[in-house]
């Protein structure tokens, strides 16, 4: 999956999470910080996002240990191949 495709997946998963929470959709771009307050998700939502990405993309960038990321784009980069 390319970075752009992963970004699309992240956007779709986050929008579904927000819908599940009954919260309005957010604008998500590569430089959006995942926990910076622009998107209404908490750290457990983020944990779930990472898990779902592993299923969708097919690999786990954290298999060898945690890697720092902050923005949607940085997370997409970790999964892109």
């Amino acid at each position, binding site marked *: 999956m390319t970075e752009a495709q992963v970004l699309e997946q992240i956007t779709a998963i986050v929008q579904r999470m927000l819908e599940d929470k009954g919260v309005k959709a957010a604008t998500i771009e590569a430089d959006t910080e995942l926990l910076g307050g622009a998107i209404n998700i908490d750290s457990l939502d983020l*944990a*779930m996002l*990472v*898990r779902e990405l592993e299923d969708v993309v097919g690999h786990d960038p954290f298999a060898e240990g*945690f890697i720092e990321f902050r923005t949607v784009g940085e997370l997409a980069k970790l999964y892109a191949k």
Partner: protein
Amino acid sequence: MSGAGAFGLEAGDATPLVAHASAILSRGDFATAAEALTAKMTAAGVSRLMVHSDNPFDILRAIDAANRTGADLFIAHTNLPETHIDAVVKKFGVQMIVAANDRATEESAVGAASGLIYMMTSGTTGAPKIASHSLNALMSRAKAAMHPGNRGAKWLLTYQPTGFAGVQVQLTAVVGRGVVVAPEQRTPAGFLEAAKANGVTQISATPTFWRAFLMVIRPGDLNLRQITLGGEAADQSTLDRIKKAFPEARVTHIYASTEAGVVFSVHDGREGFPAEWLETETQGVTMRVSDGFLHIRTPNAMGGYVSDTAQPKLDDGWLATADRVEIRGDRAFIVGRDDSTINVAGSKVYPLMVEQFLLRQAGVIEAHVYGVSNPISGQLVAADVVIEPGLDPAATRSAILAACRENLAQYQVPRAFKVVDAIAVRESGKKG
């Protein structure tokens, strides 16, 4: 009467004690509020008090007033269902409830109070377990932890304010003339904003909190002196990342529980604890491994559950934990809870409890709740449900999720939630 001032708060003292949302309250404000509450309690003959609030203002003035009057204090989580609160009030004869608007109950006294503090585990279907502590033991632990670097410190209250760790942070601030900073928004961004606005110097939090917090924090945002990790096992990579982000701070990880109080703290930056601490008294506590589980003997332990027949205290005086220990070389590691529990960011979730809740929702005919692992929170709650034929799966799913969010603690809410056709049953007859 324990006498005014035993808690160290005096009217007129302008030193700040709590920063909550945008308000800052002084030690004197608390002394005055506690005196008012004491007068109210004395007038009504209250010997059993409950605080049911997440606001440190309510929690600390209730502790202070209970201390001044010698009353028993029940500290109740705000996310406990009302039915459980009512049951505790009735069963233990709680005569007054401290909240934004304090109110008297219709209960009457049940005999002499013993000046204990009762803390509750979170329970959604079963009644919460209640553990008793003496305020003296809690305070002396806070005092023991009071090295000069902690005096006048500003603490970020990351833990549930009504839980053991949350109460301990608040008492530490009281003892050390420090400040408790409690944000209005309990999100990583909200915590950072409050920490920056108030110049927080110490943060005690779970490793999961730290992993999320490190994602929003920028170099220079905070000048931390003390960093403490607790609630779940601290892993080496998280310890290393914290040390890198805050090279000046002292980093400590602790092992504590509602039942045992604080058991040990480790300062060497390595995960686990020295294996030699097993069987030799360290920090006033003795530990042993029995059948792979950690046992503890500690003067800080609670007296036992008052509301549960399954006492974790063994006949020989040891406390049996559900934590598995593994020894590798000179180091001992906590490797996880007993296998039925899901550990979400340091909070224990009992799958059975969530299953029972789901099964009570309209349209649900079967539910399976289990843990799924991930690199951020360790584990998360996942749920599969089977719904009655003919129902709209999307609408039913939304309704169940909304009920979960309303009635369960946020860490108990299933994050992965699927409507399925059937749930596999093993040969043993058990699900999954």
